[in-house]
């Protein structure tokens, strides 16, 4: 009898051990809250389009900010989200008709080979622009158009990234984007305005005045909310935090004893002094002195478009000062940041007026500049190693888009009492190393 009890008990142990020890996963309950996500449209620039590594191409579009948000909306009833996809076999194309970039090896003028962004081909795939892919059966949801400025959404538009997806040659972005009568929308506008100014080193003088920006923005909102659609607006990041402007150090002029002596003899009469080691680059500034040249300040920024071979081998930034188009000087930065602050106030005020959610992309960019740890991975706005920006130093890569998409989702959830899950951003590609 006791032996039987023992045997049964031993058998019971084994059964218990095998079957009872897995914690149960309760399927999460998602909900759309107060939004109707069935038809989602997003309007913006290259950041919305999935433009990355200085190019528009299939894989980038698959991982666009708009598409990642749409995929999560699909979990609470969102419908098909159509994107103007570049063919999967195409290498894609940049705004300058070049090919996208990848990380590879490049040999500089001094014969030093190092890891550097390089173009994947001699030129981009012009076929991307030669074919119109509009279809009435599958209206697009992603109206992220690289280079799109707010003022350009109302009338016909010759931007090649739009003409390839436009319903007709006379179509406007507003007309096409709202033809599907979206039930939920997102606007990420104003960024391309400040970006084009910043990328040009402040040589493009015109940025739309804030009064016009406000009235244009409101006009878009009037159309967008006409059917009672809810939406989420995005503020503009301080673009001067992007690696395009922060990678090349202001004091990257490294001098040995002999060049130090030479430079001091040349520039001391102008009251500029050098020492052995790091020194500020020389830049063009017409207001500085008769020679229109001065040392760059530590607060001023150099663009990634600076021709580095000229710097390394041809005295650029030394005897030949760096031209204005590669420099954001103190005055330009003050103006730029002023405009961004004004635009953002307009966006925040309009979000309040129309009772819409607003994502603080400006703050997200600041956090990235400080750096933060996401699920064990340190993310920052450092070029290449920071993990969030693509190789063009301006647009996010897939992982950066995923992180930003999570900010949109958090904002929607908090405003509209929805429960939309965030994405695991580490499941998206960051910089790929050879």
């Amino acid at each position, binding site marked *: 009898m006791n032996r039987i009890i023992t045997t049964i008990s031993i058998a019971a142990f084994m059964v218990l051990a095998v079957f009872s*020890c897995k914690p149960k996963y309760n399927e999460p309950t998602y909900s759309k809250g107060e939004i109707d996500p069935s038809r989602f449209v997003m309007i913006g620039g290259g950041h919305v389009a999935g433009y990355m590594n200085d190019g528009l191409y299939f894989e980038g579009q698959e991982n666009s900010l708009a598409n990642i948000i749409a995929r999560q909306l699909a979990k609470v009833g969102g419908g098909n989200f159509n994107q103007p996809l570049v063919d999967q076999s195409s290498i894609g194309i940049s705004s300058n008709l070049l090919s996208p970039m990848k990380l590879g090896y490049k040999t500089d003028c001094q014969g030093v080979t190092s890891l550097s962004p390089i173009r994947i081909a001699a030129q981009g795939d012009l076929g991307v622009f030669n074919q119109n892919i509009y279809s009435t059966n599958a209206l697009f949801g992603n109206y992220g158009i690289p280079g799109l400025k707010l003022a350009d959404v109302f009338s016909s538009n010759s931007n090649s990234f739009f003409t390839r997806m436009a319903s007709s040659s006379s179509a406007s972005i507003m007309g096409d984007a709202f033809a599907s009568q979206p039930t939920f929308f997102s606007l990420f506008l104003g960024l391309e305005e400040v970006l084009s100014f910043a990328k040009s080193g402040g040589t493009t003088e015109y940025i739309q005045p804030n009064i016009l920006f406000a009235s244009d923005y409101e006009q878009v909102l009037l159309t967008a909310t006409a059917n009672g659609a809810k939406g989420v607006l995005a503020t503009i990041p301080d673009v001067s935090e992007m690696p395009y402007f922060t990678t090349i150090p202001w004091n990257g002029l490294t001098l040995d004893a002999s060049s130090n002596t030479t430079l001091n003899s040349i520039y001391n009469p102008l009251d500029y002094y050098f020492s052995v080691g790091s020194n500020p680059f020389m830049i063009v500034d017409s207001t500085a002195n008769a020679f229109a040249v001065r040392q760059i300040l530590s607060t001023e920024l150099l663009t990634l478009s600076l021709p580095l071979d000229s710097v390394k081998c041809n005295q650029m930034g030394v005897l030949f000062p760096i031209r204005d188009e590669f420099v954001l000087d103190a005055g330009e930065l003050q103006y730029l940041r002023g405009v961004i602050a004004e635009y953002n106030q307009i966006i925040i005020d309009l979000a309040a007026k129309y009772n819409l959610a607003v994502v603080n992309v400006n703050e997200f960019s600041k956090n990235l500049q400080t750096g933060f740890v996401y699920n064990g991975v340190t993310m920052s706005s450092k070029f290449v190693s920071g993990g969030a920006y693509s190789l063009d130093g301006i647009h996010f890569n897939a992982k950066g888009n995923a992180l930003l998409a999570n900010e949109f989702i958090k904002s929607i959830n908090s405003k509209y009492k929805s429960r939309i899950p965030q994405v695991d951003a580490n499941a998206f590609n960051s910089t790929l190393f050879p």
Partner: protein
Amino acid sequence: MKQMYIFSLFLLGFLSINRSYAQGFQVNFQGQKQQGMGCAGTALFQDGASIFYNPGSVAFSNENSINIASTPIFSNVLYVDSATQHGYRTKNPVGTPFSAYGIFQAHKHDKLKFGIAAYTPFGSTVQWEENWIGRFALTRLELKAIYIQPTLSYRIADVIGIGAGFIISTGNVNLQKDVPVQDSLGNYGHAELAGKALGFGFNAGIHYDLNKKLTVGITYRSQINMKVKNGVATFTVPASLNTNFPDGVFTGALPLPNVTTLGWAYKATKKWQFVLDINYVGWKVYDSLAFDYEKNTTSLLDTKSARNYKSIFAFRGGAMYKANGKLDMRLGSGFGFSPVPDASVTPETPDANRFYFTGGLSYRFTEKFSIDASIYYTQLKRTAQNAETNLYGTYRTKAVAPGFSLIYKW
């Protein structure tokens, strides 16, 4: 005018080892009889496992005995990430800690006893599923430690026994995690740290029969610093980053805390016995976990991760019923506070305050030969955000440990 592109790569918060299944308070998976009574037995001499529970009570042994046991651990963790609501599971292989105890005396009724124990307080592996969300914190941790404890016990009076043992601890650690750099196909890098650890300590105790019914026991197991010297760090990363992550040697250390136990045993009737143990575990020593790499680069820096554990109490108790001359039945339970603060909860030890329940049986086939069986069950839940990785979610753990032992006396 050089170094225009500055690739100061990845200051990785690198590497953290931890006890695997060794919940906050130490795992008392020693002795099936003790496990059956809630893993308590400091004041009750039962069998060779008393070398672990109280070397002082070994003095009350009256024969030579050998005890061989194994307690397989079936443990599973589910992690639900708070942001994505996605669930990820461990795929732990079954832990198979074994133990062996021997008590010997030169002559019958000698006051001096010799004991030797070999046991594996940590013998399990945590293996997370592929591509889980915490893969940059941990993908796999294998910890194997074997304690060998030669012991001397002496009965200084009819009612008092004292004993002490020296502990030699040897172990293997293998810790793996993904490295957040991707190759041209998007595959993440991987790091593996493997090493042998060695540590020393002692275990001492007193056993005192207050009267015919009530016994009290006190033990102190010292802290053991498990030191890994000449551990091997191996990195699988894209070719262009090989120089940033050089394979090489590392050193590290893991303090296993001291444990002070006060225990009581009460013989209520001929058939019923009760035990109660209170542990105080000195987890406070585990304030940080440091790794020192022989070759440092901008990507691979020595690390020091805050742990800030706090010392805790654990309570364990149980009852035994002698059904007849051959069969004993046991039940027990325990509660332990978690030493792990919220900020230090990691995928290695998703620890929490826990209750557990145990049961057990002994059956004596003959005077000399008997078998014991025991079972342990616990489940726990912890929601926390780790301060180093920012992983934020809920860990749910279930563990069942059925154990068996064979005992031979002469």
